């Protein structure tokens, strides 16, 4: 049950999602990844993709315009 952190501050839209997808591939089931983002667009497409793929997703606004997307790999 490892927890990974992915720092995507300052990265524009498709990059955080692509990085998340790549990282998720290397993770085991039950592992958690915390993606830190400050691009509002990624706040939509990362959770959308993760939910569609069937993972558990949680979003937290940690600061004004900064979010943490917490994804638990379920399969």
């Amino acid at each position, binding site marked *: 049950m490892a*927890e990974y952190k992915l720092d995507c501050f*300052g*990265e*524009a*839209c*498709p990059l955080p*999602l*692509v990085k998340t997808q790549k990282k*998720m591939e290397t993770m085991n089931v039950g592992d*958690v990844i*915390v993606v830190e983002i*400050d*691009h*509002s*667009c990624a*706040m*939509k*497409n990362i959770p*959308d*993709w993760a939910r*569609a*793929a*069937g993972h*558990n*997703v*949680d979003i*937290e606004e*940690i*600061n*004004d*315009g900064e979010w*943490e997307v*917490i994804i*638990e790999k379920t*399969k």
Partner: protein
Amino acid sequence: MESKKRPARKRRNQVPIALGLLLLIIIAGIMLAGVNSMLAIYWIFGISFGIVLQKSRFCFTASLRDPVLTGSTTLTRAVLIAFMVATVGFGAIQFKALLSGVAGVPGNIFPVGLHTAIGAIMFGIGMVIAGGCASGTLMRVGEGFMQQWIAIVFFVVGSVWAARDFGWWSVNVIMPTSISDGVTKGFHLPTAFGWGFAFFGQLIILAAIFLFADWYEKKKLNKVPLEN
């Protein structure tokens, strides 16, 4: 879902800033109305458009990129609905102008041709790299995303440059590859195919793309969990 509680950082209260900004917007609107009432209308429309864009996380870039990247066509379908609404609205405006006998068709009508496709591909590559199209970049500049401040500077540089050389492009590229009769005339679907065919044809095509996008997403999403 289980996750360690992280200490919540103290956040600035943005309500006073919002109220101050609202006051500034109203004052600026009243001042603009004093100069020209149309300016005040543009002002309010621009701000409303920005709010809707930001709050809905509407993104033309994502509408074309996400189907390829994630299989999600939510924004694609939103854009298609916007096109349909625009088709009905602009169709009504133009048809009314036609009935009242105004010379020429109101609206921005441009020639189409190979240059449209080339320009669209170039714009598509640019907007994915820059992380937003024109409206999306502007909206994120306002949100405070620094990288897009750079993008907007070069967007302005590029637009100014294009405007400066537009005459040359018009004569040497747009004219020869255009399928319209002349540069100034533009290509107007109802003029070319008739009103009924152009109007309903466009709506039917958009609806067909909508259904395809819906089917595409369902197909992609059913596939995704199996792959992982």
